[in-house]
Structures are given as C-alpha cells and as structure tokens.
C-alpha cells in the first residue's frame, strides 16, 4: 500500500517575518473561479461608477487678462510655458504649473489675432489688427527696460492668423491673401490667391511640412504647397469653417470646426466627402486642436462648452462646462496629451484634465495594473445598458440640454419627412444621401 494525504507545511505558506509580504499562491483553474461573467460585470459596473465619482476635470485657471482671450499658443518643446493674447492687444506668457504670469507685453493696437513660436523656440511672433507682425525674444527683458519687439514687419493688408513652418525660417500669414514670409525679410516671399476676399485661419502641416491649409470666408478650405506658386485644391462646404487643425500623426488628415455646429474630418486625398462628421455641439464651433497622439481632438464652441471627440467616432466622449465659463475662443491640447487649455470670453484661461477621472501624479505598479484591468472590463461590457447609461450620462447645463433636445426634434422631423416623401414618390426618385455628403458643396482643383 502506498498512501499520500495532502499535508501542507505552514512554513511554505506563511511569511517568515512581519516585514515580508504575504505569500499569495495562485491557481488559474477555472473551476476555482466560478461566476466569471457576472463577477466581471459587477466589477465593470463598479469601475464605471468610480469613474463618475472621480470625474473632476477642472484643475485651475490663469486669470490676469483684462479682455477676452483671443488666441493661445503652446511651446513646441516645453510643457511649462504658454503664451496667450487678448482682445485688447496684450500678450501674456504663463508658467503653467505655478499658474503665474511671467511676462506681460502690450503687443498690438486692437486684437491679437495669432501667436506662433519659431522653430528654435528662441522667439515668438504675434500678429494683430494693426497689420503688424512682431517678433519677440523669449528671454525676459531687463528690469528697467521696456518690452520691445526684436523685429516689426508692417504688412500691406490686414492679417488674421499666423503659422510657422516646422523647421525652416518660414511662416505663413493670412488675411486678404495667404502670404509666405521669410523671417529675415520684410516682404512676403510668396502670396497665394484664389478669388477669395478674406481668409481667417492658416495652419502649416507639422508632418508634411510644405503643406499649408487655410479657411476662407467663402465657406472653403484651401490647401497650398509652399513649393508651388498657387493653391492646390479647395473644398467648399455649406457653411464656413472657423478653424482647422492638422492631425499630428496622420499627415493627410485634418479637422475643421464649422459654423454649422459640427466638426468635419477630411482626408486631403479625397476632399469630396469628409471622413467623419462629428456632431454634438449646439452652437458654432470656434476652435479645434488635436491630441498629440492623433486619436482625439478637443473643440471649443460658442455654446460655452468644450467637447472631446475621438477621430473615428461621430459623437463626443466628454463635455466640459463651467457655470462661469463663457463662449470659447480658443482651445489647445498640451504636448503631454494630459491637459486641455481653453480660453474664453470672460478673460480666463482654464486648465482641464484630458481624462476627467484620471489620477494625477505617479501611479504605483499595482494601481496601474488595477486601472488597466478595470479599463479592459469597461470596454468588454461597454454595450450593456446599465454600464452604458452610467458611462454616457453627463450633467449638462440647461441651455445646452434644451438646445440639444430641440435639435433632436428638428433632425427627427426632417428624417420623418424625408422617409415619408420617399414612401410616396416613385421608387428611386428620392435617393438616400449619406450624412457625410450633405455638407459639402464641391471640390475644386
């Protein structure tokens, strides 16, 4: 006879001293872990609820401007610094972590229209309503001296925006025409015109560096090549685009913020139909900026809300509002992709978390593992009605809530009308038109 009975030596299962960690032997046999699905569902539900508990996105604000913030510009390589311009011509340089103003310049007469850094980040340029392009050194002036620009260029036409080339000493401005400047010269190197009387935004592509796009008041977006003499293509939409932003990871994609409450993501290779229409705002969208990872973008709107969209999806994943925040004029996503900056009509610049329930600071490995686990569970059970309800619920201010409901009724009735018309007409005479194709008038080459 041979007999063996289970007998565990406690020394192998208990820790030796009090300073040791407890021994945790694992056995992944599924029989020892019953009710896998309902337990995971419960955990997912808890994770979603905890997300709501910790959702406190507002971090702080930078206040000091004496008029509405008109434009903001983040430093190309440093997270700490932010420059903002306001409607009274003042430019302020901010220290973001301390939330302090480091430098104040009275730069222009009238509105500061645009700010941009030069590639070496030794200087930055501002444009304003006084038709000047001013270059400022990044170093603070000595105490007794006044802040003077290192260079001032007087333009013949008004200037509404400025954007710098990624590496070369080349920058573009727009106004009546789109002009290309070299830093050392006082005359534009090149100017592009395509039968438009005014342009209000221009952006250099930061990946395909000789590509340039601008938004025009005739409801078009025009693409230029700095190597060519004229514009390449343009797309005309039903309503005008206010601002646009290039995707930092996909050189051929850009998103524009439109006056018709929507945002449109385009592929430059086919401008005829946008890749995606992003709906959710209930008033004109004023500014848009991409997350450095290219997966998401943030938009600010006239309806006093900031929304975060995923580039692949048609609806926003997050909305930020604040009772005191007025109409948004500019938004920016910081280079570490963790924070969102917004400038608005009531003179403040606000700092928000990009993920509203994210814990700030260093995470311990176990904490990280737990968060990853709950993230995976949330994704797995995202379609369950309870989980989805809790995850999607947002407390909206009354004006947005009512406006949204109004828009819903409008679109619903339009759809019903269309479907009824289709039902009572000759088959095929009322074609189905995709939502993406409804907003584009034509593409010109």
């Amino acid at each position, binding site marked *: *006879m*041979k*007999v*063996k*009975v*289970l*007998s*565990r030596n*406690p020394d*192998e*299962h*208990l820790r030796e001293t009090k300073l040791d960690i*407890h*021994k*945790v*032997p*694992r*056995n*992944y*046999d*599924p*029989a*020892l*872990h*019953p*009710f*896998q*699905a*309902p*337990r*995971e*569902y*419960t*955990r997912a539900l*808890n994770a979603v609820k905890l997300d709501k508990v910790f959702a406190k996105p507002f971090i702080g604000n930078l206040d000091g401007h004496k008029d509405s913030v008109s434009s903001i510009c983040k430093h190309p390589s440093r997270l700490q610094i932010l420059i903002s311009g306001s409607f009274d011509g003042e430019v302020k340089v901010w220290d973001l972590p301390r939330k302090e103003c480091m430098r104040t310049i009275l730069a222009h007469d009238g509105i500061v229209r645009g700010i941009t850094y030069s590639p070496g980040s030794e200087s930055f340029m501002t444009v304003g309503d006084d038709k000047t392009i001013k270059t400022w050194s990044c170093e603070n002036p000595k105490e007794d001296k006044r802040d003077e620009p290192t260079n001032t260029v007087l333009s013949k036409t008004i200037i509404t925006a400025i954007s710098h080339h990624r590496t070369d000493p080349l920058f573009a401005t727009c106004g009546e025409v789109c002009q290309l400047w070299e830093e050392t010269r006082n005359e534009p190197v090149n100017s592009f015109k395509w039968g438009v009387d005014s342009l209000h935004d221009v952006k250099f592509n930061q990946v395909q560096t000789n590509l340039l796009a601008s938004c025009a008041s005739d409801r078009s977006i025009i693409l230029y090549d700095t190597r060519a003499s004229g514009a390449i293509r343009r797309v005309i939409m039903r309503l005008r685009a206010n601002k646009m932003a290039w995707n930092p990871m996909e050189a051929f994609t850009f998103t524009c913020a439109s006056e018709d409450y929507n945002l449109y993501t385009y592929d430059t290779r086919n401008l005829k139909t946008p890749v995606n229409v992003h709906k959710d705002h209930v008033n004109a969208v004023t500014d848009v900026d991409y997350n450095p990872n290219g997966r998401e973008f943030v938009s600010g709107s006239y309806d006093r809300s900031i929304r975060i969209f995923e580039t692949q999806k048609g609806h926003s994943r997050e909305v930020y509002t604040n009772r005191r925040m007025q109409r948004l004029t500019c938004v920016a996503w910081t280079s570490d992709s963790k924070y969102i900056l917004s400038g608005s009509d009531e003179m403040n610049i606000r700092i928000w978390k990009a993920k509203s329930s994210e814990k700030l600071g260093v995470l311990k490995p176990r904490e990280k593992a737990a968060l990853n686990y709950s993230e995976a569970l949330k994704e797995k059970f995202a379609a*369950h009605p309870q989980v989805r309800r809790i995850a999607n619920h947002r407390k909206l201010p009354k004006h947005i809530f009512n406006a949204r409901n109004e828009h819903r009724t409008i679109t619903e009735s339009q*759809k*019903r009308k269309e*479907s*009824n018309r289709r*039902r009572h007409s000759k088959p095929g005479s009322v074609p189905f038109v995709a939502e993406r194709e409804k907003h584009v008038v034509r593409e010109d080459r």
Partner: protein
Amino acid sequence: MQWRYCSVFSGVLLTASGFSCAVCSHRSRTRIRRRDEGRKRDKIPVDPETLKKYEMGEGINLKKGIRNKVHRLRVHNKEKLLAPMAEEAARREILLTEDYGCLETDAGETTTQFKQRELVENVDLISASKCFNLNLDFGPYSMRYTRNGRHLVIGGKKGHVAAFDWVTKKLACEMNVMESVHDVCWLHIETMFAVAQKEWVYIYDNQGIELHCLKRMNQPTKLEFLPYHFLLAASSAVGGLSWLDVSIGEKITRMDTKLGRINVMTQNPYNALLCVGDSKGVVSMWSPNSHQPLAKMLVHKQAVSACAVHPHGTYMATSAPDRTLKIWDIRQLSGPVENAVLRSAAQHLSYSQRGLLAVGMGNVVEIFKDTHTNLKPYMRHKASWALSDLKFCPYEDVLGLTHTKGFSSVLVPGSAEANYDALETNPFQNKKQRKEAEVKALLDKIQPEFICLDPNAIAEIDVAALQHKLDSKKKLGYVKPRQIDFKPRKTKAKGKGGTAKVIKSKKALKLKAKRAAIQEMRDAKVLIDKKEKKKKPEKSYGVLDRFLEPKKK
C-alpha cells in the same frame, strides 16, 4: 608580438593580437547555439488535456456571422488573443507546488479494504492528527466547513452548537441554544454562522453572541449560503424558500414551493440555484427571481432522500429509499448517466472538490471515484453510530461525519484540491487578510437577479430582444401619429393637475395611438400578402398567361 586580454573571459585567457581569438570565438559560438536551444526550450509543451481545461470554446464563426469588415477585424483581433491566453494559463500549472493525495495498492489488494487505522499508521504525524473523533451527547449532529476548510461548526439536535478551528482543535465557542437545532451554516467569513433552530434562524458570531434572530425565516429545516451573492437561503417545514442578503440584511424573496416539508436542499455551486428534492421524486431548481422552479427533473419513483451537486456544476447525484443512486447531467438536464443499486438506502450524499462522492448508508460511508464513468467504491468506512450528516473538507483530504454521538473526521486521500488560489480562498489567511478579502468580496457581490441556469448568460448577446428593438424602432419612424383631441379635465385639488402632468398624459395617449396605428398597418400588410398569394395562378404558361380566364368559384 603583443598580448592582450580577451574581452569575453575576464583576464584569464591571453591571446595574441592580430589573430582571431580561436578559443574565445569557438566558445562564443557554442554559447550562442546554446542560447538558441534554450529559446526553443523556453516554451514548455502543454499537455492537451490540461489545455482543454482552460480553453474558452471554439469562438465566433467570422466567415459567416459578421458582415461588416471593420467589426470582423475587431472581433478577429480579440479572438486571436484567446488561444495564447489559454495556453499561457495552462503552462502556469507547472508552478503549482502541491500534489494531489493518492492511495495506491499492491498486487492483490483493493483500495476498499484499508481501514482508517491502517491509513493513519502510514501517513505523517500532521495528517494522522486529522483523523479524530469527538464524543458528544446532544443527539444527531449537523455540520459545515468554511469555504477555506479551516473551521467547522457543528450543531446537535438537542441544542449543542460549537464552532472551532478543527486543524488546531482550537475552540471558538460552544453553547447550548436550549432549542432543537436543525442545521448550521457558515456565512461568508468564519466569524459568523447561522443556526436553523426550532422556530427561527439565528445568526451568532464566533464568540457565541447572538447577532440576529431572523423571524422571516420561520420553521427552518435546511440552510445554504451562496458566497458570491451573499445570500443565506433557508427552506422551511411548511415548504417555503427564502433568501436573505446578509450584506444589507434584506429579505430578497420568500416563496411557497408547494412541495410540503423540505428535507433535501442543496445548492448548485456552478449557478447558485437551490436544488430541492421532494417526496414525489422530483428535484426542482429554484432561483429567487421566479416563483416557479427554473427546471424540474423527475429523478426517482420514490421520495428523494439525498441530493448532491458536483462542484463544477456538471453532475448531480440523487438517492432514494429504494436503494438506488443515480448520477445526472444537470447542464443538459438529462440522464441518468449512472444508475446503481446500493446495499442499503443512502441517506446522505456529498461531493468533494475533485468529484469524489461520499454516500452515507446507515452507519456506513462508501466513497466513489469517477462517478459519471465508472461507479465503483473507492473507500469504505464504518462508523459506530448511525450517520446524520457528512461533508468533505475543502483543501484537505478529509471527510467529516456526524452521527448520533458526535463527530468524526476520516482521511480520504485524493479528495481535495491541492493548490488553492489565495485571492479566492486562503486556508492560511490571517485576520488582516480576511478583512481585506471580505471587502473585496463585497465589492464583487453578484446581484441576485443574475441567478439563472446559465451563469454566463450576461456575457452573451440577446439576439431576439435586440432584433425586436431594432425592428420596432425602424417601424416607428414611418408612422404618422393620429391627431388626438385631448383636453384634460381641470381639477383644483393639489397635486392632481400641473402642466407637466398634462403633457405626460398627452404623450402617453399619443404613443398609444401610434402603437395602434402600427398594429393596424401590420395587420393590413399581412392581409395584403395573403391576398396576393391567393391571386397567383396555379400553373404558369409563360407569356400566354394573359389569355387565361379567371377561375370561377
């Protein structure tokens, strides 16, 4: 000629510069080859039998099921992860430290012939101490082990209740409740247990202090605790079943099964349903969500005398006074897969963690291995008194027996799971770990609504409901609601009127009208279809059909 150190070996070998280091290069080459071999050896081959345990089904048919390319790719990417995951989990088995217990015979011996005395002589001292007897005088006892197998509570018919750590034999509490005790049951931790007494169920802590008296569970006969749902279930002498959530102290459901006195009740650990055996030979499975049993199985022609469910939820053993023992497949609700006639009628059944079945008949216990393939006795034990209850101890090769004159603990090699998962149940946990585990378990508490036949139903798609929802939404868009003239009557009583209420009732009426219109349309469509079908000629002549005269009725 210059000499220099070879960089690979730390200053031991000297080689001439200008020449390639013959020794070193040779060595390094062999080293590289060895490393490659090692890389191949890294992946330990997994036993296909082990792998089967971790596999998660055959997966989704991507070619047929999903039409959208993007979704198909997404699902494909997810599916791709599952096979390596299962393999990885199976490979982890090599890290398990303990081996299962076993009993091997020499030529001419059978496993049934060995008595406890002989086993005790052949095992180590610690294991030998696990075989013991308690002589107690308070009548037939009932018993229960905790989920980690460390603690034991026994309750005598004449009121004696004792809780203790049976491994160290340390007594936690002992008392006489001065009432008849029908059943005892641990709650989620070893500091609390429930006792089914004459009138009501009482909850005591491990010092014997009465914490609660549950008057909503009256005349209890059997108790069960569902650890993942934190539900205490009790059956009553008048045929009632009740579930109580012990985490919030609320009654979940109480229902009348109309089965008369319930003497046989056990839980299915796979899906947390209660299996109730009745006097007509039917085992019915009850969930707190429905007043009818979710399933019924006619298992015997006589009253069910005992019922036990395999811990994996695959098989159920039942016995009847006609000496039969049957094993059923309760996932498919079919069977019996095994049907045996015993020497005498079995009154008590219990499954161990590894699927050994203990059958109590009078004062004899027979233990069966491989119950669903080859029902043959593996061990036999004779107690000195008539048995009143028996339970296998989790994570220990021990079977606990209670009888008229106390408790005895019997060694059954190979009955228990050798390797515990400390994050699930830990026999060696200390107080702090227990507290932590309690909080974690409470956070993961499954709601009682999820108790159903298939516990994983929540992770599957309810296709029918989804289809219905989509269809009805589609239909609703095309229908124009009938205008209804509606003037609500004006009442001046407070709380009766109000604009919001008027709008609400208007909306409800409109929706009702809309639904009626949809139904009308549907009916009309069905009629049209039927008419069209009738019109079709029975025989077709092609182009010449137009000359056919309509048939006269």
